[in-house]
């Protein structure tokens, strides 16, 4: 059966909706023994900043029921090293490479986006706004709509690549943040990043993470993520990339029904390194069983 799985994100066309979530798939190479990267919808790499970052002290991860907390601290090799050492490997594949990036200040976001924009082999940018703003007393870029608008609109000015804004779920009203990103010029939004959490070792009385708090991911956050995708879908017209606890095709389909045009697999890669391919196959089976010819028909099709 001829099935249309393609997705449009701004100017970018994906052959299918299955992407990798930033920070869970390295720079692609690590998973290439398990996944034929050419079969992915797109690959999203670990978050990059202008300068390399050390990240947080260990322990950085701890498992919690049906999920995990991480406080990696945005460790990364920096944009220049990525371009020199990692991008050449990715260029041999014909799928879009989406670079996730962040900064400590608005000017760093602008410089980073400008640099990435000039680099051949990068097809879209995903802005992580769940990080602290050094200039404004370390409040998170993605929790104050005024700051969000400013940083997204400034980045919009320096790139003509598809611009995806990745929303922080640690807000009262996610649809307001989605609208803000849309108004500031985003071509798409990623929903959601990790939820801030904490775990304590009751034997020692100490937090289990050296950083005290960390970001919760995995199946535990899925219902929250689905709800947030649905709220955003009702508010914005730009496409939504749904993520948060997707480990199976059934999970992915829930996100489509809630309003996602594409999905990303994060923690699911750790549980099953072939998860992305299993999910893609499962989506196809679901569509053919249901007689759905175009994936676009599923987006937002929840019957409330």
């Amino acid at each position, binding site marked *: 059966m001829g099935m249309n799985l393609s997705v449009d994100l701004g100017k970018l066309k994906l052959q299918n909706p299955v992407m990798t979530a930033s*920070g*869970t*798939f*390295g720079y692609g190479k*690590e*998973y290439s*023994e*398990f996944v034929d990267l050419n079969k992915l919808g797109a690959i999203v790499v*670990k978050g990059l900043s202008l300068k390399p970052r*050390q*990240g947080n*002290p*260990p*322990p*950085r*991860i*701890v*498992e919690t*029921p*049906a*999920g*995990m907390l*991480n406080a*990696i601290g945005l*460790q990364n090799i920096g944009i220049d090293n990525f371009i020199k050492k990692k991008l050449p490997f990715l260029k041999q594949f014909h799928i879009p490479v989406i670079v996730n990036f962040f900064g400590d200040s608005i000017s760093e976001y602008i410089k980073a986006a400008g640099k990435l924009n000039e680099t051949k082999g990068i097809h879209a940018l995903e802005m992580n706004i769940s990080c602290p703003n050094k200039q404004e007393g370390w409040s998170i870029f993605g929790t104050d709509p005024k700051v969000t608008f400013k940083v997204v609109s400034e980045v919009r000015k320096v790139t003509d690549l598809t611009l995806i804004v990745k929303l922080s779920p640690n807000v009262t009203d996610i649809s307001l943040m989605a609208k803000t990103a849309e108004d500031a010029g985003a071509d798409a939004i990623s929903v959601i990043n990790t939820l801030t959490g904490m775990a304590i070792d009751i034997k020692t009385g100490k937090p289990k993470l050296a950083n005290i708090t960390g970001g919760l991911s*995995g*199946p535990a956050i899925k219902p929250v993520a689905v709800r947030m995708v649905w709220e955003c879908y009702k508010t914005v017209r730009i496409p939504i990339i749904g993520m948060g606890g997707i480990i199976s095709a059934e999970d992915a389909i829930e996100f489509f029904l809630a309003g996602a045009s594409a999905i990303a697999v994060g*923690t699911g*890669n*750790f*549980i*099953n*390194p*072939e998860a992305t391919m299993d999910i893609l196959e499962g989506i196809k089976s679901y569509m053919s069983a249901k007689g759905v010819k175009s994936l676009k028909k599923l987006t937002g099709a929840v019957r409330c």
Partner: protein
Amino acid sequence: MNRLFKATVTDNKQIKKDHYLLTLHPFKKINRPEPGNFFMLSVDSSLDPLLKRPFSMHRWLGFDFQILYRVAGKGTGILSKRRPGDLLDVVGPLGNKFPVAKTHDKIILIAGGLGIAPIFSLAEKLKKNKHLLFYGAMTKEELLCIDELKSLGIEPVIATDDGTLGYKGVITDILKKFLTQNSKLKTQNYLYACGPKPMLMALSLLARKYDLKGYMALEQNMACGLGTCLGCVVNTVDGYKRVCKEGPVFRIEEIVWE
């Protein structure tokens, strides 16, 4: 080569209180694991526990392999209930290995507690070096593989915290005694170690004091085991390194203990 595979449990026997020896039969031929390498095992397919658990290669049987483990929490508790015929998802072998010694190198192996799991495979591999093995545990009941070591012709120097077998005390103190009493031991020796953090910290100090070189295998909480999540780092003189990728085996002098 795709290192994800299914394996059948062929044996999972309790060898001491809370300690088990698991034998796995992979569905496909896997890369030969070397001492220091580890596997990520999913103990079942539920969402809790969610992540795979890392375990050292204990013994390579040519096609099948063995894991020696202790029930430490929920995941290992579930693993201990798996029966012959059960299927497990496994990724591996992963990580680096203990660098091979030249046959004339003099070697001291040090294992603390479950650290015997990888050190055993190394002891087997380095038999020709006529190494010395120092092996410590809390109590006699937690000393594993003694008969197997003896059948390889290896007589470990044993210490238990409570003195129920061998010397009474921690194994690094016993090693120190050997080093001070036997000046020959101090020269051209390589240390190879695995054990709990306090033991490795004490060993690092000893190594510095006696100017001994060597390697140790470390543990850290892991999510991917493949080098992508950056969750498993330890601090080294060259910054953070991943236990699953640059490790689990590190040069002793490289690790910065906090």
